[in-house]
């Protein structure tokens, strides 16, 4: 079945937040739609001495210029509420919001913003983890423990947001000391942007403290209400978030962003207000992936069986911690999936720095940690004198075993998937004079599910309209929903309509994310189908709040093989081929499923060697899509998928997650292939030509 959203997107008919105007029915009868533009910090870390707004206020068409004192003073956040709507006395990263100009057109608002001047008194800029955690570092937040949602105690180490520990470190240390082979290496990853096509955009229409309508590029509209309520001191139900399609999410559209501020601007002006970020603004002030430093100590016995692992992870959260759904951020980086080990412990810190605040991005935490862990496995295998692929195969979990976190999955099919990927892989020819190598990366991920709600409304033609709180972010989830629901109800797909509705229409929904969207819906569809068939009357509609129980813990493996070719004289690396072995239960929509595999791999490819916000001094130098290099079609290698069927999923539809499965293994597979090709190990992403050149020519 083709994608439900394909035609509108291909023809340009699809509307997004930026397309909505005062002439549209949504805003008909309301006062004139105003436009906002933001004044952003040009300093990395500074005290704000003065904000001069007179010239901007005098510009014809400017309605108002607003600074921190004009708007709600309670900071916002998904869990940790530490992000001011507008910076008050201090800016903590370059690009932070300082003032908002509201005008009758976007052009005037932007011209007004250019007339606002800000005087700064510079403070020490702490851009790196090392600088921000040094003993004499300046505190970026005076009392970070005082924020709502804070998870650290008063007097915690400077610039610490969260700290977590897992496992028995003493035991790991004792076993490491006995290991026949050990490695102790530190891996580093860069800041990358989600790269969605549609920059963040918001329209707020404040009616009263009882009713605020909102259109916002947000993937979890129901949860957005809680964030808005927390910051604006209003009940979540006040916010009626309207349905509108999103032009790509990749994890980046879950933070409060500019929405609380735009609500305030609407309240202050009495008009609906629209703000559409320029893409450059989104690049410097969105919520990109956390850069990480991960030290891995790993040991194995004489035969290459892993005995001990200690991972010490530090995440650079940037200036605020409020863009992640928990204050501790991307803690899943602490896990060791896929393999057995006799002992495992990890430590985790999330720290403030003077860089853009960090949020979620496809496989948040895992993309960083799997690069470190899968590189480390390769290094340990090499040290033990064992082929890295065989080393992995010998250590992969088998069905029946608990994983390193103590979780028990229904099955582990890592070995089968590895064997299938290896069997299918055939290397491509290599340019003359180039070095070539093949490397592997493995990632496995469980399929979670969350409570949701849906309403089934019978249609006149004997079909059903299913109202959902899940926005279509572009992955095709509504198409999959229709197929699952039509199957569950015994209808033809054409008889089922999936409709995303305003938050006021449904009691709960957790939104898109976590590779759980389809599984969550499928579990709900089972329950909905039973209730549908048990209705008293055919014209009765159903509202269901679904909390599935007794769902088996299932997961998926992805085993990737990457082949690279390297020009030893220049350091140029070409990724020739990536083979992805993926274990699957039922595939609902083969096209959408394949797009997740290919898209996730391409995102991993960009992470591996192209994408970098390049923020070494606190400025994002790659501040437009000409400089920020997302992989283009010409940069993508030959991609081969090997589906290993017969796995167990959840619900009658028998589904498992796929959205985040193929991104994490790509970068380590490429780094490991680079090592096979050159004999040089690079422990820092991205794998730039210059880094490769220096690694090869180090002696």
């Amino acid at each position, binding site marked *: 079945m083709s994608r439900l959203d394909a035609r509108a997107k291909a023809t340009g008919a699809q509307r997004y937040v930026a397309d909505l105007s005062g002439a549209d029915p949504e805003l008909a009868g309301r006062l004139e739609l105003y436009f906002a533009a933001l004044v952003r910090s040009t300093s990395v870390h500074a005290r704000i001495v003065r904000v001069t707004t007179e010239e901007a206020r005098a510009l014809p068409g400017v309605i108002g210029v607003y600074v921190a004192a004009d708007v709600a003073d309670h900071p916002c956040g998904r869990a940790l509420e530490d992000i001011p709507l507008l910076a008050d006395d201090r800016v903590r990263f370059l690009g932070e919001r300082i003032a908002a100009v509201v005008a009758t057109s976007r052009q005037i608002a932007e011209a007004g913003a250019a007339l606002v001047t800000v005087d700064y008194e510079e403070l020490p800029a702490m851009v790196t983890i090392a600088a921000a955690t040094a003993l004499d570092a300046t505190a970026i937040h005076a009392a970070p423990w005082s924020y709502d949602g804070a998870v650290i105690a008063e007097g915690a180490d400077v610039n610490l947001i969260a700290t977590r520990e897992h496992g028995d470190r003493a035991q790991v240390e004792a076993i490491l000391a006995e290991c026949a082979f050990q490695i102790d290496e530190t891996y580093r990853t860069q800041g990358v942007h989600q790269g969605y096509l549609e920059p963040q955009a918001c329209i707020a229409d404040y009616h009263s403290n009882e009713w605020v309508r909102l259109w916002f590029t947000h993937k979890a509209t129901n949860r957005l209400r809680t964030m808005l309520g927390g910051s604006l001191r209003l009940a979540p139900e006040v916010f009626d978030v309207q349905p509108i399609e999103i032009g790509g999410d990749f994890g980046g559209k879950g933070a409060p962003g500019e929405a609380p501020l735009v609500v305030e601007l609407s309240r202050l002006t009495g008009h609906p207000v629209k703000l559409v970020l320029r893409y450059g603004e989104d690049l410097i002030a969105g919520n990109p992936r956390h850069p990480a430093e991960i030290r891995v100590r790993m040991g194995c016995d004489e035969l290459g069986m892993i005995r001990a692992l200690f991972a010490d992870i530090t995440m650079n959260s940037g200036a605020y911690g409020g863009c992640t759904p928990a204050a501790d951020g991307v803690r899943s980086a602490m896990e060791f999936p896929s393999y057995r080990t006799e002992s495992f412990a990890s430590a985790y810190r999330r720290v403030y720095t003077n860089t853009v605040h960090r949020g979620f991005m496809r496989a948040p935490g895992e993309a960083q940690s799997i690069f470190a862990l899968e590189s480390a496995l390769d290094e340990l295998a090499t040290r033990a004198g064992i082929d890295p692929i065989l080393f992995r195969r010998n250590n992969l979990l088998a069905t029946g075993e608990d994983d390193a976190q103590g979780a028990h999955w229904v099955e582990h099919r890592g070995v089968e998937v590895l064997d299938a990927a290896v069997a299918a892989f055939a290397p491509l020819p290599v340019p003359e004079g180039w070095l070539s190598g093949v490397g592997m990366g493995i990632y496995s991920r469980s399929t979670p599910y969350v409570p949701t709600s849906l309403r089934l409304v019978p249609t006149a033609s004997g079909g059903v309209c299913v109202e959902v709180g899940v926005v279509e972010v572009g992955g095709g989830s509504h198409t999959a929903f229709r197929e699952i629901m039509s199957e569950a109800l015994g209808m033809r797909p054409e008889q089922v309509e999936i409709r995303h509705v305003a938050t006021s229409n449904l009691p709960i929904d957790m939104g898109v994310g976590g590779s759980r969207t389809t599984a969550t819906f499928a579990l709900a569809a089972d329950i909905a189908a039973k209730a549908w068939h048990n209705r008293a009357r055919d014209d009765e509609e159903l509202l269901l709040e679904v909390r599935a129980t007794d769902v088996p813990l299932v997961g998926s493996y992805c085993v990737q093989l990457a082949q690279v070719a390297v020009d030893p004289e220049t350091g*140029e690396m070409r990724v020739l081929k990536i083979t992805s072995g993926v274990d699957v239960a039922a595939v609902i929509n083969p096209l959408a499923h394949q797009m997740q595999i290919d898209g996730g791999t391409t995102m991993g490819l960009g992470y591996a060697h192209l994408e970098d916000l390049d923020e070494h001094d606190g400025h994002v130098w790659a501040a437009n899509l000409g400089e920020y290099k997302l992989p283009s079609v010409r940069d993508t290698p030959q991609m081969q998928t090997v589906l290993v069927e017969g796995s167990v999923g959840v619900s009658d539809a028998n589904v498992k997650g796929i959205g985040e499965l193929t991104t994490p293994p790509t970068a380590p597979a490429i780094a490991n292939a680079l090592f096979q090709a050159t004999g040089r190990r690079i422990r820092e992403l991205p794998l730039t*030509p210059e880094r490769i050149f220096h690694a090869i020519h180090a002696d």
Partner: protein
Amino acid sequence: MIITRPTSVEAALEELADENSLAVGGGTSIGLMVKNRLIEPERLVSLNGIAALHGIEERGEGGFRLGAMTTLHELIHSPIVTASLPSLAFAAARVGNPRVRSVASIGGAIIHGDPRQDLPPVLLSLDAIAHVVGPRGGREIPLAEFFLGFMESAAEEDELVTQVTVPLRTGQRATYTRFTPGSEDDYPTVGVAVAGNLDNEGVITGAKIALGGVDATAILAHEAAEMLVGQRPSEGLFAEAAAVAAAAANPSDDQRGSEEYKRAMVAVWTRRSLARCLAL
């Protein structure tokens, strides 16, 4: 901002006499500058409707005439260019994407002195000449004197490039290499254009080496090229010349690499380009 569409060079010059006007060819450079707010012209004067600025001609001993508004697409598909100026067609085919190439012009590629463009080093290596007209009359400026510095060319704000001419060099060999080791859709880390002639004895009788992406603007590596003249091609000779070319470059650090790396790449790609172009 308004856009006007004059149909003659004279009319365009009249409009450009107003300092708030700016000439625009295909708009691929100007469009980015406006979008990134580097410039805010009140009036854009589109040159696309001026017939005299179009056309590709072969003029025998007089060489080749390329109208300033000749698009990259036209260069790529011109039988004259592909047969006689193949390094130019090759470079044009590697700029941007089909949408860019269908509007971007050869005049636009040189007018800004943009160091990242592919055509400037190729045209430098081919001894091309820019023909400029303005209120003070017409001038012919060899490209070797046209690129003055970062985003700076010898054409004044009230002047237009009307055409680029390339002299006839019978038996000339020419290559262009665009080194994009990251994304293929990026600007070149290094661009190397080489042109030269060998006599019947296999002795190099003339050579030009031009570099893009490694200085404030496209440059000619004069000293390196002169080392080649009167010599017979050899790996050793090419390596020596490449080292001299690398020393002549003055690259800056950016996302594509450090100064040191780019200089090393000038040496590698100059040597490889010379071997590809001038080996016996």
